[in-house]
């Protein structure tokens, strides 16, 4: 058993190493444009702000100490809450959609997937402005609601937390649907049928067969939605009316308005650490719940 495993690992290694040089451009790219800037941000987070902005290279931990102020914890928890809510909404909306696409006739699937991706052809900022027009006091949504008699007076939709969540869910839904589609597409329909044959209820089929088997897609989709939504700043500014801050707004504010790059860098690093921790935790949980099923 062990020997067999070692052998297969060696073979994989040898195979992958033959193609190693193919990865060089990608690795160089990542090193130059990801690791180096990341290192710079890390270094700057320990520097001080000059009187007129800019960076003074005097080592200090003051930026991190400043972040201990409860205000920043509040911004972080506020952002986590919005990101989790967005992820949950995307999952609830995205799962049935992905399931429907994966189970529709094969020739329709590319078209349906294209429709999911279609919004990406337009700039995100433009689409956010479109939402502002839709959500306005005298916008299309209120117009429809009033003329259908569902509400007596137009609702205040724009510049509310609801508008922020709508904007975030709208923006990141495709990131949820695509990995879920892949997972559902791989799910063997016979297993679902077998569950029914064994008298599982619909709910039991969903929670004990479908969800565990599509767990990699669920985890992937949730991570892909969670990460960009926690750092978003355009949506809270435009749809939320800049009435509150998410951590992305704080970073943007420190860099571009306060010209305090060291503090902005420290915030960025704390955010990265939190996101990293959340993702690792999530993957572990995903492994635990998916693991036993696969072994069976």
């Amino acid at each position, binding site marked *: 058993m062990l020997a067999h495993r070692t052998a297969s690992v060696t073979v994989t290694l040898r195979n992958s190493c033959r193609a190693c040089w193919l990865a060089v451009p990608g690795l160089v790219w990542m090193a130059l444009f990801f690791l180096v800037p990341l290192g710079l941000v890390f270094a700057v987070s320990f520097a001080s702000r000059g009187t007129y*902005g800019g960076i003074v290279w005097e080592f200090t931990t003051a930026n991190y100490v400043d972040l201990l102020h409860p*205000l920043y914890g509040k911004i972080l928890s506020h952002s986590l809450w919005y990101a989790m809510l967005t992820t949950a909404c995307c999952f609830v909306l995205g799962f049935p959609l992905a399931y429907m696409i994966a189970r529709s006739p094969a020739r329709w699937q590319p078209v349906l997937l294209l429709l999911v991706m279609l919004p990406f052809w337009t700039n995100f900022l433009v689409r956010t402005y479109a939402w502002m027009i839709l959500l306005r*006091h*005298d916008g299309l949504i209120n117009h429809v609601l009033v003329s259908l008699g569902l509400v007596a007076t137009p609702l205040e939709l724009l510049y509310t937390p609801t508008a922020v969540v709508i904007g975030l869910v709208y923006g990141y839904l495709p990131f949820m649907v695509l990995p879920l589609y892949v997972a559902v597409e791989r799910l063997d329909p016979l297993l679902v049928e077998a569950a029914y044959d064994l008298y599982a209820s619909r709910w039991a089929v969903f929670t004990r067969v479908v969800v565990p088997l599509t767990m990699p897609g669920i985890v992937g989709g949730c991570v892909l939605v969670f990460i960009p939504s926690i750092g978003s700043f355009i949506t809270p500014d435009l749809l939320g009316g800049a009435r509150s801050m998410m951590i992305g707004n704080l970073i943007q504010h*420190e860099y571009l*308005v306060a010209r*305090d790059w060291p503090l902005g860098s420290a915030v960025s690093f704390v955010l990265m650490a939190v996101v990293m921790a959340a993702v690792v935790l999530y993957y572990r949980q995903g492994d635990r719940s998916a693991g036993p099923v696969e072994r069976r």
Partner: protein
Amino acid sequence: MVLTGVALLPLALGLSGCGQGVEGELGEARPILHYFTWSDYVEPELIAEFERREQVKVVVDTFSSNEELLAKLQSGATGYDVAVPSDFMVAIMIQQGLLQEVDSQAIPNASSLESHLQALPFDPNGRFSVPYLWGTVGIGYDSDILSAAPDSWAILWEPRYKGRISMLNDQREVFGAVLRSMGQSMNSTDPLVIEAAKERLLLQKPLVKTYTSDHYDQLLASGEVVLAHGWGGQVARAMAERPSLRYVVPKEGATLWADCLVLLKSAPQKALGMKFINYLMEPEVAAHTSERLRFASASRPARQLVSPAVRDNPAVYPPLDQLVRLEWMRDVGKGIRLYDRAWTELKMQ
């Protein structure tokens, strides 16, 4: 087919010319001037006119805040010749050694400035900057909704207008307004004063529909808000769509601002840059700019050339008797952290 051949002929000749190393052709290519300005300050016709006149090419690049301008220059962006920072940013750029002294001989049009723009606190002798456009920050309001014309910042705390007020999404301007309403300087760095100002803003927040520096003109024009804290010129542009809009500078005082033409120390085309500054300050050109952008020109003779409708609009040309109650925004150095903290607290309530 024949036409294509003819069209390609000069190109072919040009190419062979290059091959033979005729350097003169390349050396005499049209010089390029790089102009770095506000995204809403670009007047293509005027740029084209300068290009024709001087046989040059002008490349325009834009920024949307003073901080963005500074950040780009501080992080080593070079190649720009002329830029348009605002008052307090001129002071910072002088301190940072980013500006080239301008030669007043080369810019004769800078000698006929509006009298209150001749000696400015941020560049007292005008060695580094030429004031270009100027104005105030005040309140735009809908006179159809507000029966009496407001004269105080207090109107922005009026519960009657809950949800129909917009404030600039700019910490210094928002604090500036409330500091003036408290009888303080908008450049205060007293922590207690800033804390008190924050408390007042917290009281106001439930009334505020949105904090925005970009589209309050549309909100005013569409009637979504009836009171907007903002720059005069932008309110003036909204007036074209909704004639019932008015603009007032509160009696407690407000911001006086001036965007200035400067030559960068790193400018590759210094002489051409000064020619360009002089061109923009020509009375006719300045008047045209003022007319189109709805901001007051710093050029005194230009005032006579703009149409009376624009000249007499207090949102564009602030009445001169207002000057005594206006204040320049200054950089507060490390005091900015006080504003930052208070602003973030305001947003997180």
